[in-house]
């Protein structure tokens, strides 16, 4: 069930008042929260819910076992391998089998790995990484190990279950222990985020996808150079509005439940270099990669060359995390080598670029890399890029209306990014000065307009695939 579907809206109307009524009975409230998480997950597939439950019980048992070990390293490695093998099996088995089979056949051998008929549970990449944070916490701080109900709730916390942000176990349980959960936090801010997120996703990301991006990525050979370029820029905007919109909606919902979620976006397209970009884009994933992969590999403590290797490995894993495809591998490697190039430039004490130049170069690099993220195959991505300069249809399209619309939209988007904090402050303050009836009228009107300008049906979120 999507968070922007009518059925979710209806269930929310029933769920939230009941949930808030239980604020003085926290155990019961958490039980309701847990059941609602499994209920929501089961709307995708009942078997998914059963798999998630079994996996959560396994993680709870592993956490308990880890907390009783005297040595940390070997048991933790074993537990993490078990934890991640679940993800590898469900999400990457077919990719590994097909790649291995193709490789062996090209060498004249046969592959004996069978084709399995398994379905990847929704959100598996997100809850597996959350499970990793729990196991590491259990190994390093045995006193923090939790009971089964808490672990079940942590891994089935529905606002983040399907597409993040990736929760850290210690931060989540700290909120439970502090007793601050269960009643709404910053209601005006939460409502602002939900409406803004819905508008970003339903109006703008969908418009970009339907009119600028999808037709071009589907039929790149029929387009001129400028239209291809517009689709690349359009996708850069679409993905940030889609995933950013999703994150705003779930962060707002979590606040209504009394939980704070980690920050996932800090205006990524204002980044001045690639490293800066990765402190602003999908922060819950990039900080996970930093803390659970890059630093354990040695981080920057083992010399310059080793540091660059660790950067590339971290980015490669970040790319592969998105899906079992060579396009994601290339996307991750591009970013990895991009950061390495930046480090080499700094190492060589190259002159510092003006802020505006750094910003534009970063945007250009990120936009080019998104082509691999969006394309169905490496060939399709390369064909599209090649079409920018070798194109039978020329560069200028016969009808440039859509390109003009995109240009205007991009400028407005850029201005909004720069003033997002001020706009938020202004909107929240405005909402706070309204009477409940006025606020209700304004919210009803805004939601009406979002639906009116949105697409028919319920559009999927890009990150639901991961």
């Amino acid at each position, binding site marked *: 069930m999507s968070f922007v579907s009518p*059925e979710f809206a209806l269930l929310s109307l029933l769920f939230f*008042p009941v949930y808030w009524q239980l604020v003085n009975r926290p155990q019961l409230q958490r039980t309701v929260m847990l059941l609602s998480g499994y209920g929501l997950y089961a709307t995708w597939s009942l078997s998914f819910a059963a798999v998630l439950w079994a996996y959560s019980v396994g993680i709870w048992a592993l956490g308990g076992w880890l907390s009783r070990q005297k040595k940390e390293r070997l048991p933790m490695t074993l537990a993490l391998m078990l934890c991640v093998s679940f993800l590898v099996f469900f999400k990457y088995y077919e990719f590994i089998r097909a790649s291995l089979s193709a490789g062996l*056949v090209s060498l004249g051998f046969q592959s004996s790995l069978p084709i399995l008929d398994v379905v990847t549970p929704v959100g598996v990449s997100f809850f597996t990484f959350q499970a990793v944070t729990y196991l590491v916490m259990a190994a390093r701080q045995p006193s923090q190990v939790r009971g089964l109900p808490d672990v079940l709730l942590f891994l089935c916390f529905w606002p983040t279950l399907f597409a993040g942000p990736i929760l850290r176990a210690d931060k989540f349980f700290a909120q439970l222990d502090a007793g601050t959960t269960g009643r709404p936090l910053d209601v005006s801010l939460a409502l602002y985020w939900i409406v803004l997120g819905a508008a970003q996703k339903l109006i703008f990301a969908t418009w970009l996808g339907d009119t600028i991006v999808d037709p071009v990525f589907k039929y790149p050979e029929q387009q001129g150079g400028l239209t291809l370029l517009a689709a690349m820029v359009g996708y850069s905007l679409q993905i940030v509005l889609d995933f950013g919109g999703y994150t705003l909606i779930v962060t707002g919902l979590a606040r209504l439940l009394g939980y704070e979620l980690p920050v996932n976006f800090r205006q990524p397209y204002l980044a001045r270099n690639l490293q800066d970009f990765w402190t602003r884009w999908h922060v819950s994933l990039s900080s996970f990669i930093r803390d659970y992969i890059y630093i354990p590999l040695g981080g920057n403590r083992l010399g310059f060359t080793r540091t660059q290797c660790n950067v590339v490995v971290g980015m490669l894993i970040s790319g592969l995390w998105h899906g079992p495809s060579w396009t994601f591998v290339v996307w991750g490697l591009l970013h990895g080598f991009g950061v390495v190039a930046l480090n080499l430039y700094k190492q060589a004490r190259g002159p510092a670029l003006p802020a505006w130049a750094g910003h534009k170069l970063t945007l250009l690099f990120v936009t080019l890399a998104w082509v691999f993220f969006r394309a*169905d195959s490496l060939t399709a991505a390369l064909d599209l890029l090649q079409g920018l300069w070798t194109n039978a249809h020329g560069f200028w399209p016969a009808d440039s209306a859509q390109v003009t619309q995109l240009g205007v939209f991009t400028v407005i988007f850029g201005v909004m990014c720069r003033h997002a904090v001020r706009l938020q402050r202004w909107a929240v303050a405005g909402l706070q000065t309204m009477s*409940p009836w006025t*606020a209700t009228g304004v919210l009803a009107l805004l*939601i009406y307009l979002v639906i009116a300008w949105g697409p028919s049906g319920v559009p999927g979120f890009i990150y639901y695939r991961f």
Partner: protein
Amino acid sequence: MKVSFSVRQLGWMLWVVGGLNALLWLDALDNYLEARFEWSLSSYWPGDWFEPSRRMANAVKHLTSHIGRHDPEAERVQTQPGPTPKPAPPAMSLPLQALPAGAFWPSLAFQQLTPGPQRILFAGDSMMQGIAPLAIRELSLKHPEWQMTDLSKQSTGLTSRKYFDWPRTIQQEIQAQNLTLVVVFLGPNDPRDMYLPDRRVSFGKPEWLENYAARVDEILGFAVQNQVRVIWLGLPAMRDEPLQRGAVVSNHVFYDRAQAFGTDYLSTEPLIGLVSLPFKKSMPDDHGRPLNLRGEDGTHFTPAGLHKIKQALVAHIEKAQPQ
């Protein structure tokens, strides 16, 4: 003055916002519920209740068309199709008879394309969304002068006309584009109850089959009347039991109606998996090695599966060209 809403206030605020929007979008909500859950409010409530929301939605649509909001459905040529011809061929014989295990409805190739450049429409649901780009790419390379349009739209079918009306859309496109060929590939969204103006008809009942076949006839009849060729792709095996049952019914209807109208039916079963046999994700390739043809959902296709269907479709079209 800074006000913080109490939990009680927030509770009724949500109800009022939700209730108001449900009322203001009642007609759209009804369409959604019917398409998604086979549950129609309009079959229980008076039609007048839906009129204000319908009028308001039309007014907003009209307004947004002036400020540049892209609405592909509104942009489509609004030509009125002529009266639906009475299907001349015999009606479908009911009840359907299940094929024995291992059997399938074979392809039919009755038609020849008209000489000269073709104007082809690819219509269907997410099944066609996978095939159309591949087929169009290959046909464009072979015949750069051909005009091809891909109107495939996911979650559509023939059962729910309120959500998306394929017979009407195809008729409009035939007139607007002066098409020479229509390729149709749809079906997994169809095994569900059908809402007729005055009643609900359960999936699989004789009345459902009659109405489903009548919708196929609307497309084929109009196409034949306008000398437009049609290639209707049959469905392969499906993992989900309801979809598999649907594929059995749909294929029988598609085959029967294509035969009755003298149009083409392209069977995907021998390529991907027989509907009369249990579902399998893979089939052996030319060298006997297993080839994974189906997506994880057991409905859609891997690139290898798409490639096989695309090859068969392109070969079928090439064969139909006048010598």
